[in-house]
């Protein structure tokens, strides 16, 4: 008998699964007709969502079409067939659809009928408007919103800015007076801009900048670059005190003085002549103010290099005398305040006694001259150095010359080894005895250990004493005495044990210390512990 007709013939029917919108079509590599675990996730999703989110997804590849189930069934069937095929057989069936067929599956709209990857019309229109190609890719995903995000200098909308108060940065050119030549009109075609601009008259409409700013910008005088403290002259005090009429003369005299010191030739002239004669020269030389350094240089050149001059000794003596006399005179003049008749002073004393006096002074002066030079030097340093403070002074000292020691509190001589060792008394030979496992010089250890040693010795004595007691009293004991004795023995033993432990610890400490020292100094093969 034939089989009863099946209710549904699977080969001629369409099978749909109810799934959530986003999920891929059913999967199966699974032999069972029910859905695999992946779509069980989907089915869970399908059930948990609202009815509108669930869709029927065709899962078979039959040629059967159901007109009522989808809106445009024919395309769907074809498209669906392909997708179902792919989804069933591919290894990536579990993966969420990255093409739009997942969306197509989910969409219950008319867009489902298209082939995979088609964009909605409005999207396509927008893409085309932007000038991007219409190739099915959604370029709108790559658009960036243009924001005022900076890019170096963004415009900041300041709500409190008042632009009417800010003066305009414009210059207006009044072209009313401009007259363009008729013949130039022909040339206008060439470079019209320049011709026009050259003939304009500038008319200031508004001030461009603040007066303060303009002042600052108008940097004509570099006064702010000048030093606040100008170099003072060497005898500014004297100068200041001197009445003003003499200042010019003073300068002249100074110059003359320096010149005289520098050159013998100049010394030939009589002083008065020298003064007058050189006044003109000085005026010319006044342009560059002579410094003390210049003076010194000239003196140096004179001394070092000009000794081979033609002047004989006698003449030079005369010259010296002359220079000296003039020097004296001038220095007197310098420090003699209010000497109006400076020029006449030399005239008053051209006589022999002057020369004599000069000679006397000369010797003294010559003797002093060296000191004077030094003094001059000192003076220079005094002048040039402004302020010495402690730190700068101290910085001029160096440890090369200075060996400052650190001030420390005097140590008590406790740390020193005791000169008298108790062990020394007992030492019979000139040999330091090393005892114990660690081979330490027992006699020369620290106090603590020595005490321990002594206690050990005492213990030894005590124990020896108690031994004697033991041997003696054994016969005449009662129970209590026995107990006492035994307790005493126990006590001794306990003590001995404790002492032994202590010794051991001490030895180990010492050994450790020795090991540390040996690790630094001695060869590594020595193991002291």
């Amino acid at each position: 008998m034939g089989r009863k007709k099946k209710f549904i013939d699977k080969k001629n029917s369409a099978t749909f699964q109810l799934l959530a919108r986003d999920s891929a079509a059913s999967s199966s590599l699974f032999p069972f007709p029910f859905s695999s675990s992946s779509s069980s996730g989907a089915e869970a999703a399908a059930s948990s969502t609202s009815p509108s989110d669930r869709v029927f997804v065709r899962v078979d590849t039959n040629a059967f079409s159901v007109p009522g189930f989808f809106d445009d069934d024919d395309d769907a069937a074809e498209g669906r067939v392909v997708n179902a095929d792919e989804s069933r057989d591919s290894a990536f069936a579990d993966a969420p659809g990255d093409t739009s067929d997942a969306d197509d599956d989910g969409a219950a709209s008319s867009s489902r009928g298209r082939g995979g990857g088609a964009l909605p019309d409005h999207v396509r229109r927008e893409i085309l408007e932007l000038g991007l190609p219409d190739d099915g890719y959604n370029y709108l995903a790559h658009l960036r919103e243009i924001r005022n995000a900076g890019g170096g200098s963004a415009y900041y909308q300041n709500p409190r800015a008042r632009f009417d108060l800010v003066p305009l940065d414009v210059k207006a050119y009044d072209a009313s007076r401009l007259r363009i030549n008729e013949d130039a009109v022909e040339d206008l075609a060439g470079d019209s801009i320049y011709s026009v601009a050259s003939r304009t008259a500038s008319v200031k409409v508004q001030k461009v900048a603040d007066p303060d700013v303009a002042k600052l910008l108008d940097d004509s005088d570099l006064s702010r670059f000048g030093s606040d403290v100008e170099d003072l002259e060497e005898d500014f005090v004297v100068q200041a005190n001197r009445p003003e009429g003499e200042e010019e003369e003073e300068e002249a005299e100074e110059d003359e003085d320096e010149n005289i010191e520098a050159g013998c030739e100049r010394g030939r002239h009589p002083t008065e002549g020298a003064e007058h004669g050189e006044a003109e020269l000085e005026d010319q030389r006044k342009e560059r103010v002579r410094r003390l350094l210049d003076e010194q240089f000239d003196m140096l050149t004179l001394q070092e290099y000009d000794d081979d001059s033609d002047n004989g000794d006698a003449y030079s003596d005369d010259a010296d005398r002359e220079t000296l006399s003039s020097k004296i005179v001038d220095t007197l003049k310098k420090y003699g305040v209010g000497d109006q008749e400076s020029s006449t002073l030399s005239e008053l004393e051209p006589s022999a006694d002057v020369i004599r006096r000069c000679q006397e002074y000369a010797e003294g002066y010559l003797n002093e001259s060296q000191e004077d030079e030094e003094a001059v030097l000192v003076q220079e340093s005094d002048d040039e150095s402004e302020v010495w403070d402690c730190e700068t002074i101290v910085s001029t000292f160096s440890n090369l010359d200075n060996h400052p020691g650190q001030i420390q509190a005097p140590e008590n001589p406790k740390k020193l080894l005791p000169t008298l060792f108790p062990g020394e008394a007992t030492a019979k030979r000139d040999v330091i005895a090393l005892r114990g496992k660690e081979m330490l010089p027992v006699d020369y250890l620290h106090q603590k250990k020595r005490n321990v040693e002594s206690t050990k010795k005492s213990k030894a004595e005590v124990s020896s004493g108690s031994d004697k007691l033991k041997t003696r009293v054994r016969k005449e004991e009662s129970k209590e005495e026995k107990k006492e004795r035994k307790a005493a023995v126990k006590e001794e033993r306990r003590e001995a044990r404790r002492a032994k432990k202590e010794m051991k610890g001490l030895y180990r400490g010492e050994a450790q210390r020795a090991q540390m020292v040996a690790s630094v100094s001695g060869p590594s093969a020595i193991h002291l512990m």
Partner: protein
Amino acid sequence: MAAAAATPYGVMKGAKLGIEEPREQVNRIRITLSSKDVKNLEKVCADLVKGAKDKQLRVKGPVRIPTKVLHITTRKSPCGEGTNTWDRFEFRIHKRVIDLYSSPEVVKQITSITIEPGVDVEVTIADL
């Protein structure tokens, strides 16, 4: 004619009667419900059947297909040490089948209303 005979309820395709009747084609529809959770499954089945009966459709009640049990037996121990104890895991799949005679749209309506989590619905449509 055969088609007309075969469609006790439905109207002939394309023909329109005076009385407004739903233009539907009757198909044989098999709804297969499967789940590992019996309670939910039974609930969904009951709902479907009820919904179909409300719409005066011919329903063949939920046929219970024998439960398939998948066994996974694994050693409890992560290493090989110890007494050889075994875990016996099982995964039970319950399946129910409901047969209908109706149009696809109606079925869509029915299935859109009621669904429990964990129940997988598969609809097979064939011509009458």
